[in-house]
């Protein structure tokens, strides 16, 4: 039988929880209380903000010569193969899709287009609107036709905040997990690899944290060449 803390007991331990240095039983008891007390959760969130803010006060320092190059090389080495090949295409595609999407994304692309050769997207794509149960649009889905099995998704910000998964399937009835994503206060966009079990991709769905399908899209090849910029 569990004996979760009271508000007073939980608040006493909240500083160590925020610092992530509270262990074992105490943490478990406090977490149980937090699960049902919004006031204490809010208090813990405020203390966590203090913890997160302290590193901002640390003095900057010049990294060793070559740090930036080595860091980018590491990021490139860690990058999935499909992402290395389609990175620029992803930005262009998302820009093309992002009607009503975050202005910040458009600004990023705008800088790119102003500085370099306009990127080209895949010659042939499959695209569709992502809609909710009532048929209202929530965003767009694009799948370039080619050797790379990738799906690009741009959400227009209509989905409530929270964690979601994108599932996909081919002509069979079996769904495969494609990608997990979080929706914040702004529009979301992402690219994800399509597993072999869902290829060729025909239908995608967005599932919320409770397991409910909140959006769906049936993909239809459009065939036409698309070009951004």
């Amino acid at each position, binding site marked *: 039988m569990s004996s979760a803390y009271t508000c007073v007991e939980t608040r006493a331990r909240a500083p160590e929880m925020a610092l992530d240095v509270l262990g074992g039983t105490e943490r478990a008891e406090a977490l149980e209380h937090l699960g049902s007390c919004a006031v204490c959760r809010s208090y813990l969130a405020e203390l966590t903000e203090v913890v997160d803010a302290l590193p901002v*006060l640390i003095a900057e320092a010049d990294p060793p010569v070559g740090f930036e190059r080595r860091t980018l090389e590491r990021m490139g080495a*860690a990058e999935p193969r499909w992402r290395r090949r389609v990175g620029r295409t992803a930005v262009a595609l998302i820009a093309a899709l992002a009607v009503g999407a975050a202005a910040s994304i458009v600004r990023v692309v705008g800088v790119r287009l102003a500085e370099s050769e306009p990127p080209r997207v895949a010659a042939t794509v499959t695209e569709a609107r992502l809609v909710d149960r009532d048929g209202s649009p929530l965003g767009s889905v694009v799948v370039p036709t080619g050797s790379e099995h990738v799906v690009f998704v741009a959400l227009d910000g209509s989905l409530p905040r929270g964690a979601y998964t994108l599932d996909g399937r081919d002509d069979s009835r079996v769904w495969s997990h494609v990608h997990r994503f979080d929706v914040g206060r702004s529009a979301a966009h992402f690219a994800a690899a399509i597993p072999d079990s869902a290829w060729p991709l025909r239908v995608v769905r967005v599932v919320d944290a409770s397991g409910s399908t909140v959006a769906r899209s049936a993909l239809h090849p459009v065939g036409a060449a698309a070009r951004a910029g």
Partner: protein
Amino acid sequence: MWSVSDDALLAGLAAGDPDAAAAFVERFQRRVYGLALAIIGEPRAAEEVAREAFVRVWRHASTYDPRRGTVPTWVLSICRSVAIEHLALGPGRPLDPAGTLPADDTGGGPEEAATMGDDIVRLRDALDHLPPDERRALSLAEFQGLTAAEVGARVGVPVFTAQSRIRAAMLRLHSALAREGGRGEGGRA
């Protein structure tokens, strides 16, 4: 020249854009490396920690939630976590991290200071007024990930005393930020 916001740069990073990645690293490298060096205390290991922090930021860029803090705050919190992991797995922690928490006007680049405004000023002021024992206990917990028991063992005081110091320090900083109507828009501090 990248003149876009931190959020926009992070969006480009999440989309896999190499130019955005380069601009992102360039913008944050001094802050990330500075934090890693302050925690680790050794340049070579600090570089490794800072580099790993950037890789994690890149990998998780699409999960960034602006409701939980600014981009710099988020990036530095990741760096802090990586550094603490490094210390936990490494040969040992620095003997005296009392200087990790800044005094006076160190830290927080001009952009960050402009963004955080009053919050950073109040936080820094509150830090300057912490009793030395509380400041050290907080620094050990915040930047080395030590529990109250470990802090007590490190500084030679009972667990209860270490716990009290950590909690008191946190409450003072929290009160300082809560003053005058709470937090600023950009600070989330």
